[in-house]
């Protein structure tokens, strides 16, 4: 890895040692929480109070401030898991395995939230809780992919082997996500087209867009906090016999 500058590679190697990572996570979590709360407060204030009422959808459009960031996170986390899986398979880095496993339930949670909020929004808008529309369906399949990862990890006793299995599955899944997405889109569509990603001129007004982006950033920080907490727990579970865990427990007792 000569193309990576020495300080960066040193940082990675140091961070990937469990005790160092544990301490680092402990140091970061309060700061991340503060940033998360600030972003969340600003986003909710902007979205629920400042943003104008939609002329067509009334106030029920405001659910997008939860729905859209959750849907973004659901895809983002899966891709991140595949990256972690690649790292875990190539460099056998224990920390990447831990992060991959810790991300899966959070990603599944975001997917679930996206589905539920979408359904709640669909009832007044489309007049039905569920339609077999392309994006809903691919989000549902994404949830199944997450559940597959979680239960495969749970089913294999030996945790290093389980982590490798899950890494392979995450990589296979990430290759399939675009295929599933486009095939489902071909199959049927009712969901409104993308409104934010049109780069030249988003069809959403700025006063609505800014809180949405704030919320998206807040969700990213929430994920960071949650994944660090989960990874800390997973590390403790995996390394119960090692010295640093013992000293840590003694210090806290």
């Amino acid at each position, binding site marked *: 890895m000569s193309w990576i500058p020495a300080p960066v590679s040193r940082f990675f190697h140091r961070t990937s040692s469990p005790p160092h990572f544990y301490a680092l996570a402990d140091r970061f979590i309060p700061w991340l929480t503060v940033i998360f709360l600030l972003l969340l407060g600003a986003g909710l204030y902007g979205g629920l109070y400042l943003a104008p009422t939609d002329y067509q959808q009334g106030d029920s459009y405001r659910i997008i401030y939860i729905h859209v960031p959750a849907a973004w996170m659901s895809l983002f986390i899966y891709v991140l898991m595949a990256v972690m899986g690649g790292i875990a398979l190539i460099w056998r880095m224990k920390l990447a395995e831990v992060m991959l496993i810790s991300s899966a339930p959070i990603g599944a949670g975001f997917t679930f939230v996206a589905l539920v909020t979408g359904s709640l929004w669909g009832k007044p808008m489309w007049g039905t809780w569920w339609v077999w529309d392309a994006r809903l369906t691919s989000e549902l399949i994404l949830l199944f992919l997450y559940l597959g990862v979680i239960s495969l990890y749970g089913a294999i006793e030996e945790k290093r082997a389980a982590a490798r299995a899950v890494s392979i*599955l995450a990589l296979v899944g990430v290759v*399939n996500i675009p295929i*599933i997405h486009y*095939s489902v889109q071909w199959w049927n569509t009712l969901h409104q087209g993308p409104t934010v990603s049109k780069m030249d001129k988003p069809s959403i007004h700025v006063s609505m867009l800014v809180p949405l982006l704030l919320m998206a950033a807040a969700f990213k920080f929430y994920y960071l906090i949650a994944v660090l907490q989960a990874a800390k727990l997973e590390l403790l579970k995996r390394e119960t016999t090692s010295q640093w865990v013992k000293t840590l427990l003694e210090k806290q007792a």
Partner: protein
Amino acid sequence: MPIIQAFWAIIRRDLLLAFRRRAEMANPLFFFVLVVTLFPLAVGAQPNLLRAMAPGVIWVSALLAALLSLDSLFRSDFDDGSLEQMLLSPHALSILVLGKIIAHWLVTGLPLLLVAPLLAVFLGLPEQAMGTLWLTLILATPLLSLIGAIGVALTVGLRRGGMLLSLLVLPLYVPVLIFASGAVDRAASGLPVGAQLNILLAMLLSALVLVPLPTAAALKMSVN
């Protein structure tokens, strides 16, 4: 032994093994026919409804039959230790795995082609869709064996991997199901199906190249 010979040897061996246990060979076939038979019993014997549902019913049943037969892909080799011998052999495991998948398809996927037209007649699928049904089965059943192989390789070491296998594999089958039954559906209403068949072919070719790699990696994980 050069790799190509090892490849053929694997296929020959698996076919011979399957041929010695002919009763097992017929099981996915019976399952396929049975599931299709259940649909008229469940939704009522209305010819119009059945005709409209025929492509979907046949394809869902084929999917389930393929899923059920997947476990036999590596199970006996895992139990009797031949899988470890394959891992120890000097040849690339991915090529040997590809041989096993092809043999598995010849035994479990190909027979579906023979009964599918019969079932199509049962359900009243228009005759003009019959050729497309065959084509989609030829293109997509190998795809089911290929994609399924990854799932089996991941779960073969588990004692009760059956339910887990379906959770892992069925979401990955979704595109195959959409394009295959979509093509038959369009053919039944006299529309062109070139696009769907081309996509199925593209998926088959890329799966032939890509699938053996994760499968081999997963087998190495399962055996250790």
